[in-house]
């Protein structure tokens, strides 16, 4: 495991050559700041709301990797006062699906900081997120000597067909995709890395019902008190050293955990799926996107009679999709 970690570190340092700085404002980062990193590609339509959402939570500085966008994403980000952007035109796949790039940025800029690593369609929810900023959570985690914070990805979907209602720039995607599955998730433990492997939800129910083992993983550990010895191994599903993956209790109790609301299943999915399928730059040769592109041609409706309409984090807590744990 140590070798694997060293190899990851080596890779990410080597892949720094892919990155060219577009706009760096990292000198503004202060000691207690909470950071956010993300790898994006042609996401300009999503970014205004994304930035607004995380600024409201109290994220102080954003670190973006712009992977060859041609829709003005880079320029838009470079204009933001609290955003640093690097451009990478190299292969996303060969950078282990972008992980090498973010590992490098984390290693360089996030040492000693709490940092969120999310995709531009993932929105972080934690207990009391409506009344307490993310700093309250990280201070509390610090006082408990906890280094990482676990979440589950919750796929949100609209009432009708996915492509029925168009998304406009700056809009809250959850005005369209308000619904989610509350109780069809399957968990097993991954003994290699000690993390949980969660599958299920609407994508497994609709796209992967004949092949559930291929359904995407929903376990994520997006919030970490970073140290330059740490690395993400596969997306944000698992980290090394392994102790960071222990975000769950094994003796019957509940640790504090959150959720990532996933605004993927809206009308931008179709274009994305077709584009990514052609590029073949995603995990399992974009097999996931291939399934979407095929499935999307039949105008799928994820919504069913038992879909749950999203209200707030307390609802997720009661449903058992996250937990306040010991934080009151």
């Amino acid at each position, binding site marked *: 495991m140590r070798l694997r970690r060293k190899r990851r570190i080596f890779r990410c340092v080597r892949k720094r050559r892919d990155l060219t700085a577009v706009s760096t404002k990292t000198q503004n980062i202060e000691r207690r700041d909470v950071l956010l990193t993300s790898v994006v590609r042609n996401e300009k339509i999503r970014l205004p709301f994304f930035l607004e959402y995380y600024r409201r939570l109290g994220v102080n500085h954003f670190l973006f990797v712009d992977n060859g966008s041609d829709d003005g994403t880079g320029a838009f980000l470079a204009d933001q006062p609290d955003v640093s952007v690097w451009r990478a035109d190299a292969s996303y796949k060969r950078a282990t699906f972008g992980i090498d790039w973010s590992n490098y940025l984390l290693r360089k800029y996030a040492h000693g900081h709490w940092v969120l690593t999310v995709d531009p369609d993932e929105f972080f929810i934690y207990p*009391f997120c409506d*009344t*307490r*900023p993310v*700093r*309250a959570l990280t*201070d*509390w985690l610090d*006082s*408990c000597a906890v280094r990482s914070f*676990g*979440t*589950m990805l919750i796929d949100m979907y609209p009432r009708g067909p996915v492509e029925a209602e168009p998304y406009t720039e700056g809009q809250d995607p959850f005005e369209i995709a308000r619904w989610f*599955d*509350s*109780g*069809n*998730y*399957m*968990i*097993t*433990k991954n003994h290699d890395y000690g993390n*949980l492997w*969660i*599958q*299920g939800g*609407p994508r*497994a*129910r609709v796209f992967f*019902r*004949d*092949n*559930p*083992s291929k359904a995407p993983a929903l*376990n994520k550990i997006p919030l970490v008190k970073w140290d330059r010895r740490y690395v993400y191994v596969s997306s944000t599903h698992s980290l090394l050293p392994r102790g960071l993956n222990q*975000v*769950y*209790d*094994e*003796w*019957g*109790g*509940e*640790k*504090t*955990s959150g959720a990532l609301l996933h605004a993927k299943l809206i009308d931008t999915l179709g274009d994305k799926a077709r584009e990514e399928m052609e590029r073949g730059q995603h995990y399992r040769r974009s097999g996931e996107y291939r399934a979407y592109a095929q499935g999307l041609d039949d105008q799928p409706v994820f919504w*069913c*009679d*038992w*879909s*749950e309409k999203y209200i707030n984090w307390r609802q997720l807590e009661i449903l*058992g*999709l*996250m*937990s*306040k*744990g*010991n*934080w*009151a």
Partner: protein
Amino acid sequence: MSKLGIVMLVHSALHRVEQVARHWATAGCPVVIHVDQKVSDEAYSELAASCADTPLIRFSERHTCQWGGWSIVAASQSAAELMLDTFPDVHHVYLSSGACLPLRPVSELVDYLAERPRVDFIESATTADVSWTIGGLDQERFTLRFPFSWRRHRKLFDLYVRLQRALGMRRRIPKGLVPHMGSQWWCLTRQTLSAILQDPKRKVYDRYFRRVWIPDESYFQTLARLYSTHIESRSLTLSKFDYQGRPHIFYDDHLQLLRRSDCFVARKVWRDADRLYQSFLSDQAGKMKPAEPNPGKIDRVFSKAVERRTRGRDGLYMQSRFPRHGSENGLTCFPYSVFQGFAELFEDFEPWLTETTGGRVHGHLFAPNRAEFSGGETIINGALSDCAKLRDYNPTAFLSNLVWNTRGERQCFQFGPRDTQKINWFLARDKNAQVSVITGAWAIPLFRSNLNFSDIRNEAARLQQIETKQLEVLNSVWTKARIRTWSLAEFVETPMEPLQAVVGEIGIQNQSHLTQTPTMVDLSGFGQFLQNLKNQGMHPYLMGDFPSDDVFGNQVRPYPKPYLVR
């Protein structure tokens, strides 16, 4: 000048310290602040300069404070000495921290103490009586030596404790002292406090407590017992601890809770809880009626948090709760019933069971081609799908999800050797499962089928083998489920008694006895059918003894009217 003096021990968030100190000083209370030596000189002098305009705020000699070490006591001592020397009018001294926030107007606290001039408020209990010690050190705090920091040199700390235990090393407790422990936040009278600080034997005591574990929770608590005339063993500071002994932190959304607690001072308050600082430090005279502190409401919130963290919600599997084998506290969250062989034996078992029990009765949930949800639904609570592949990908998750999603409603389902067998261990280990099995009833559909006899024979052998294995699991020594088994012959002879027992446990709606009975299928010829199987070389044994002549099938119908005393 007020008769109440405040001692503050601080180490961070100095802007909050100034705010709170000014609040006390404005109300006329002198304040002595001890700033940890670890705070940079720059920050310290900044704080000192900005407080310079208030003569009531003083700063005491600085010590480097370490959690669990003597230095915190030394800091309190020097700050308290400065307080007593500089402000001769002070009658009570209140020890607080930088994260403490006064909840009620200062005048109320002053009046409260003025009415109790001889009372020392200090939580102080003998080691035998406390339950809050974390780490198992209670009496040993006073009899072992602790030269190593628990936070920084945990291994050395543990090693040295073990060494002393092994060698039987014991320290002598100074004569006259009875070790007491309690919250480190106290409020003592000048008389008691000065007696402690000016004790001729103080050097002896100090040397002793220097090597006691967490002396800030025992030094004043023990010595106050020597001098005080009236100890109220409670802290005036509201402080809640989690299961690891760390104080809970208060945030903006606790505002109402704190208001209603009627406590004088709360700890710890998050440094960026602007709303709390703003509302409690503003002038709020007369907002509250004089009342005794009542932290009961807050207690409930925080004890719930502790329970959630240590026990969790039974039957829930999620990203932050995934118990190991055996630590589940119940594999599911609500009782449910499993019926095996009943639907084969009775023609209308499912509608009958629904009507009798009011529960939700599913068909074979683990049938090979789909999960037969009640009412033929394809998707049920929690968006759980009937797709067999999804279900069989993780059958135990399917079952625990089903029970979790429908918690509060009794679930019943049919099971049998034709179904996916992967849940048997889960069923057996789950104390919420009530499993009723009529062994060998799987033969009835074969008996009534129109298959070739050789196929029937093969199928019978297969099913019998599966059910035998299943029964081994259900009857294992690890079984926690409520298991009942009857052989088919046994059951057919007196069907009402077992039915009544099973249904009674679910909680029957009309308590007296079963009025309606399900209709049993016609079994005439079944004995001969079994005999035929035997003649073909198979050995059907799970059904029990059916006579091969047909009398039996004819005898049972109509079976006697239900009449039974439970």
